[in-house]
């Protein structure tokens, strides 16, 4: 048999796999060696479907004729036959890269080849195969080769895994041995010696997944039942099996396998004598890192203890280490065993005291509390008391007094903020305005005041002196670098404005090597413009899939390569209505860049969070007037909602000649004359910018009542509700509880949507479909912000863009209600979502740290929803913003409580999550504990106290009260008194009622802290 004949066999459609096996039947080792290289080359050509130039005509023609799917499938007959040839002649290094025949004739031919060749590498190959994550070979094959002397008996773990899985397998998935386990072991007694390995290696032998039974016969056995029967039949020794199960539990194996071990152990029902023999092993397992294994061991230890057969000292010695990481149930079990030992001893011995002191390091307050209870009954030496004191920092505040009672002295918590000196804070040195804006005026007038919120007047909060400036890009090289970086990663929303502004100002200015500096960037932008997946994988400016992305990319491409015409694909998702004005600005700028007739943008923010200093705005208008440039209307329209309340008067004074003087005068508050003759939409936007919360319909101006669109001349009005609805679906018998969050824009009752006046018709034609994303909102930016479109979580990829979530808040800094509500709706709709790359909701809170807006109802609603989120990033940021809000006095406890009341009218909130968040806030300082206590008392007064997990909220309140040592308010005390029973909430309510402290020193500390934070 030479290579030509082999090629003929491989490419002959009529030849079967056995013909390949037959071809090598009489090959000697030297024959195989001589043809090996040629076969390897042929194998490579076939698998790549690329004939070599030197290949025979048959190979070339056959491979060239093989087209379509046949080329890529490894199981095509050419490929399979080539693989068989490899097994017949190739060395081990080449065999490792060869597919293993699977089933049927192909596999049988492979076996015949191996059995004829008897390769020296077979044992090594089997071991290599076995150690693969999903081996292609099975136990019957390996066993068969061992029995026939082809390989020595394997001794590695993966072989025993194959054995365990094969004996229990049904034929549904893998090749099994084909008999119930006991019969198989009877037929092959040598396998009984393999049984100990079941408890040492990873296998399915003790798993209970239903798929393991799929296709099983009636008499099918799984390992646990087979082993129990083998014990009964005396084939396996009971003592050995009991010990093996415990040995297995100390192995690093998967939890479900460990669970199988202790289930088998339990099913053998060890006697007291047997358990006594195994007591050392139980003790070794009691601090096992897997909770259910430790629980199993502790149950046996408890049984031994009750039977008086436990080595108490050995147990207590191990208990000291076990407490540290034990789960709550297990640590309580350990304490109950210690308690029973104490009862037996009729005292608390030194070793038990040491163990109980270790229990104070437990992370579970219940365990710590019970340990303290037992310690309080012990006769403690001074050294032991000292030992207890050193564990003080591990205790929650609510248990500190218990500890202090045991040790007999009070200790001041070292980490409280009591070092702040109230005397050093002289409020009189601050002016009235500074006191008012910081919310310190009440502190000045009332020396007992602890916490007040800062001024809620937006004019006070939005002062530019509190807000960071945005530094514009000064040269083309920096602009290129900024774009290149932003394309890959955009963190701050201001970056987008800086780039757009840079292009508007620097277009026409050159830089040496512009082409060389931008060629990589242009290539990258071209890729991102067409490759959605690549764009989505980056948190850059091209990550969105909407019109904004298209507009941005168009602008960048036109600026970088004005002469190139790049066709951008259509957007995947619809832009939010309130993005439209900015998109129009980008489109206008793109046209200007193309024509090389750019003017600096009027609307670029001068400060972060989208604020524009009116003085800078007027300077820009003056520049336009001086140069005779025409102001782009959308640019002007977009600039109006950004104007800061500060510097308006000074700005107006610096205004030079301008055709826009009446509008500028009106928006800057220098005139009340509403002259909506020319451009009504512009004037309405100016009206909202001038007085964002004012209802212009109430003014004495001659304004048609019909034009009072919500967000037009009147401010937004809305309501929301959180409810639970039971729903049933036709395909299912069950009913489902669905959390609903409804947000409704309130229509003005007097307003007829089909209003008769011309003005009303004009507006309603544009905004009556506010709920539809198709609304053309460009004419009324404020109204578009109030478009309460439901968030598109199912395909809302854009919501996964962190910078864009934050950027939304920069579009209309003068009125955040609409964007807050959109954020709240988005948070509510995704409240139970896990974190993914697509839910960067944390960025919805980032702007709140600046404090440039009063925290209104909708802000507190956002925060309440954030604190209850499932995904950790958003929840963590909500916690941070709450902590910051309390420090700076932004957070209003009354408003936060009212939002929580609204959200918990039905059990809509997950209290476990909310409690974790509030606990973190409360632990930050005594000030935080105080504010959280106020919030919780108001909230709990209005909530159903039988709500599931409400005790978690009581725990936070108890801890907060333990820190601040202030009395509960009278109304709340009355409510607490109504809670009866022995539930955890009832016990905590009782503990709360026992609190009667009123610590003046801590009040001073809290007050001092509240003041010093704001200075």
């Amino acid at each position, binding site marked *: 048999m030479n290579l030509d004949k082999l090629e003929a066999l491989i490419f002959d459609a009529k030849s079967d796999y056995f013909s390949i096996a037959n071809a090598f039947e009489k090959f000697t080792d030297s024959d195989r060696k001589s043809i090996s290289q040629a076969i390897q080359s042929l194998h490579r050509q076939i698998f790549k479907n690329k004939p070599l130039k030197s290949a025979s005509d048959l190979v070339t023609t056959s491979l060239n004729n093989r087209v379509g799917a046949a080329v890529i499938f490894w199981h095509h007959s050419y490929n399979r036959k080539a693989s068989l040839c490899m097994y017949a002649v190739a060395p081990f290094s080449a065999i490792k890269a060869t597919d293993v025949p699977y089933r049927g004739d192909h596999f049988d031919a492979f076996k015949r080849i191996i059995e004829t060749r008897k390769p020296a590498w077979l044992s090594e190959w089997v071991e290599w195969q076995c150690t693969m994550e999903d081996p292609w070979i099975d136990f019957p094959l390996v066993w068969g080769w061992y029995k026939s002397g082809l390989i020595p008996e394997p001794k590695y773990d993966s072989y025993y895994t194959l054995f365990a899985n094969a004996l229990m397998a049904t034929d549904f998935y893998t090749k099994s041995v084909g008999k119930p386990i006991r019969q198989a072991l009877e037929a092959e007694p040598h396998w009984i010696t393999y049984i100990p390995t079941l408890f040492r290696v990873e296998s399915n032998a003790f798993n209970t997944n239903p798929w393991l039974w799929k296709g099983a016969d009636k008499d099918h056995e799984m390992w646990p039942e087979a082993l129990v029967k083998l014990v009964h039949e005396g084939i396996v020794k009971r003592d050995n099996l009991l010990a093996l199960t415990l040995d297995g539990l*100390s*192995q*690093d194996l998967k939890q479900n396998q460990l669970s199988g071990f202790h289930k088998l152990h339990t099913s053998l029902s060890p006697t007291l004598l047997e358990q006594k023999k195994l007591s050392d092993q139980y003790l*070794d397992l009691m*601090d096992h890192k897997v909770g259910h294994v430790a629980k199993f061991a502790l149950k046996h230890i408890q049984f031994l203890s009750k039977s008086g057969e436990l080595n108490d000292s050995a147990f207590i*010695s191990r208990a000291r*280490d076990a407490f*540290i*990481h034990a789960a709550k149930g297990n640590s309580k079990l350990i304490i109950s065993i210690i308690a029973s030992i104490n009862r037996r001893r009729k005292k608390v011995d030194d070793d038990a005291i040491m163990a109980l002191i270790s229990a104070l*390091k437990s*992370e579970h307050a219940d365990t710590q509390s019970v340990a303290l209870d037992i310690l309080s009954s012990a006769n403690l030496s001074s050294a032991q008391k000292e030992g207890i004191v050193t*564990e003080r*920092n*591990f205790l929650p505040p609510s248990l500190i007094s218990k500890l202090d009672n045991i040790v007999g002295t009070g200790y001041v918590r*070292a*980490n*409280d*903020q009591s070092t702040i000196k109230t005397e050093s804070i002289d409020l009189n040195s601050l002016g009235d305005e500074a006191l008012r804006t910081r919310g310190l005026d009440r502190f000045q007038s009332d020396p007992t005041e602890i916490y007040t919120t800062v001024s809620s007047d937006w004019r006070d909060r939005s002062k530019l002196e509190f807000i960071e400036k945005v530094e514009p890009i000064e040269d083309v090289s920096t602009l290129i*670098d900024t774009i*290149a*970086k932003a*394309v*890959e*990663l955009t963190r701050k929303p201001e970056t987008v404005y800086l780039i757009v502004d840079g292009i508007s100002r620097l277009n026409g200015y050159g830089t040496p*090597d512009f082409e*060389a*500096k*931008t*060629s*990589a*960037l242009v*290539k*990258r932008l071209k890729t991102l413009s067409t490759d959605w997946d690549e764009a989505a994988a*980056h948190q850059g400016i091209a990550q969105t899939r909407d019109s904004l992305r298209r507009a941005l990319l168009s602008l960048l491409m036109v600026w970088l390569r004005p002469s190139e015409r790049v066709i951008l694909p259509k957007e995947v998702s619809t832009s939010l209505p309130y993005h439209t004005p900015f998109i129009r600005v980008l489109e206008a700028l793109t046209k200007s860049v193309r024509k090389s007739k750019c003017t600096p943008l009027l609307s670029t923010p001068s400060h972060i969070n989208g604020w524009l200093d009116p003085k800078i705005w007027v300077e820009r208008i003056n520049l336009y007037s001086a140069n005779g440039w025409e102001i782009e209307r959308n640019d002007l329209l977009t600039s109006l909602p950004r104007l800061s309340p500060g510097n308006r008067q000074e700005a107006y004074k610096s205004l030079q000649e301008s055709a826009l003087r009446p509008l500028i005068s009106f928006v800057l508050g220098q005139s009340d004359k509403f002259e909506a003759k020319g451009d009504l939409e512009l004037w309405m936007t100016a009206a909202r910018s001038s007085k964002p919360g004012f209802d212009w319909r109430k003014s004495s101006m001659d304004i048609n009542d019909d034009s009072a669109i919500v967000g037009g001349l009147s401010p937004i009005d809305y309501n929301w509700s959180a409810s639970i609805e039971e729903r049933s679906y036709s395909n299912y018998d069950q009913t489902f509880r669905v959390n609903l969050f409804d947000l409704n824009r309130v229509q003005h009752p007097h307003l007829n949507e089909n209003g008769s006046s011309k003005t009303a018709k004009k507006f309603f034609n544009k905004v009556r479909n506010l709920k539809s994303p198709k609304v053309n909102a460009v004419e009324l930016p404020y109204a578009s912000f109030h478009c309460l479109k439901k968030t598109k979580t199912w395909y809302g990829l854009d919501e996964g863009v*962190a910078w864009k979530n934050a950027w939304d808040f920069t579009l209309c800094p003068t009125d955040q209600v609409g964007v807050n509500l959109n954020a709240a709706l988005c948070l509510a709709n995704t409240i139970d979502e*896990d*974190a*993914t*790359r697509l839910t*960067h909701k*944390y960025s919805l809170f*980032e702007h709140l*740290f600046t404090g440039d807006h009063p925290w209104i109802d909708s802000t507190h609603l956002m925060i309440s929803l954030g604190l209850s989120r*499932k*995904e*950790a*990033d958003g929840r*963590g*940021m909500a*916690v*941070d913003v709450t902590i910051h809000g309390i420090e700076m006095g932004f957070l209003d406890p009354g408003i936060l409580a009212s939002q929580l009341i609204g959200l918990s009218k039905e059990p809509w909130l997950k209290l476990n999550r909310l409690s974790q968040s509030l606990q*973190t806030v409360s*632990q*930050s*300082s005594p000030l935080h504990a105080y504010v959280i206590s106020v919030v919780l008392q108001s909230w709990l007064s209005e909530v159903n106290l039988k709500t599931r997990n409400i005790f978690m909220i009581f725990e936070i309140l108890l801890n907060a009260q333990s820190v601040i040592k202030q009395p509960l308010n009278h109304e709340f005390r009355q409510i607490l008194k109504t809670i009866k029973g022995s539930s955890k909430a009832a016990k905590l309510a009782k503990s709360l009622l026992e609190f009667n402290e009123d610590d003046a020193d801590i009040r001073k500390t809290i007050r001092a802290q509240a003041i010093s934070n704001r200075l």
Partner: protein
Amino acid sequence: MAAGIDYTYKYDFSSGLTPFNDQRRASLSLATCNLNHKNPYFFEGKMRHPRVIGDMLITLSDIVRTHYFLPTPAILDPVLTSNEDLLRLEGFSGCCGVYARADLPAEAFEGNSHGRGTTNVDFNTPMRRALMRLREGDDVNFSVGKNEVVLSKDDLKIVEKKVKLPLRWIKSFSEAQAYQANLELAMEVSAADALRFIRTLPKTNRPKTPSYVVSTGRALRLSQRKTNGAVKILGTQRVKTIEKLLPRAETLNIWHDQNNGTSAWEVCFEVGSFFLMISPEVYRGFSGEGQTLSQLSTTRNSGLISQIRAELKWQSMLNVEEIATKLNTSAENIERALAVLGARGLAGFDVKNGQYFHRELPFDMSKVEAMQPRLRNARKLVDSGLVKKNASLNDVTVYSVAGTDISHRVELRHHGDHCTCQWFSRYQGKRGPCKHILAANLMDELERVS
């Protein structure tokens, strides 16, 4: 599959602990092997704090056996360096994103060191189980290497563990040194406060974006907001590994590099410490960071490096000033040369002392250097003549380096090199230089030499 080299750990016996006798007396023996399959004998003594040492060794073993984002168990053994002052055991997680080191000073033992050197040590499952049973007050003998082994007969068989030693695991050893040299102490807290904080780290549903550890008074808190002095962590589960060490510890020192987001967590005991350093992101192992590429690419100072190498004698601290005086050069030059030696696996960095220490990794580091993909590609670019000098003005030299279909503009500057490629735009040099910058630097060096 990740690139790797076939490697065999060959131990004379299995590391293990003899069963306790009635007086709770036992012996812990660590088996050793080095690159040449020799089995050095380093140490014999008695543990002063068996449970603490046991906890440190188990934690190190846990880390070495863990892959923090794939269910792929690693079977690699830690590396031990011995001298008269200290036993150091080092290793990386399977994903190479976590570096762990247990420092056991001479005071932790009653006994003397018998040798200096670096070796692999056998960590196996039975030994781990035995370590868990150690208690304070136990009388435990400890030996590293073979002298008179007191283990049972079953443990005395020669152990051979054939592994595919991932190249990234070895590369990480050199990268980790470069990171440690830039760490600054950010916080120091008591073990109790540290434990309370570590327990608050989520077990499931962890943040996917960076979190920051902030200090409020003496307590620590996890925040999602970047603030001054906050320590960035991504992958809180990696830090949670130290939880089991804290109940017996005294303090926790937290180190960080604000520039690149690496943090290190040093658990300090009465005697000894455990050092854990995590990479900036869960999916970024130290191996791929490229902090050492600049050092590896350069041939400058090769004479000085050879001189320093001659001074290395497994010191636990390399005194830069002393070496500088001896070699008649500046401390700065010595620091730079030691960084190069660190990149080549010949020195480690001890953050606490701010000094390098000598250890020679028991792997063939020449293979590692040859397989740094970025460096290899940069050399290819230079060899193929695809790097052209465009201009040199003031302190900026501009090169044109061929990319795919386009040419990248590389600026070599004194205050930081710059490239127009995507890699540079994304990381801004925080993950080491891109291949274009490396190529330009190589070319620049060639031109200077010529």
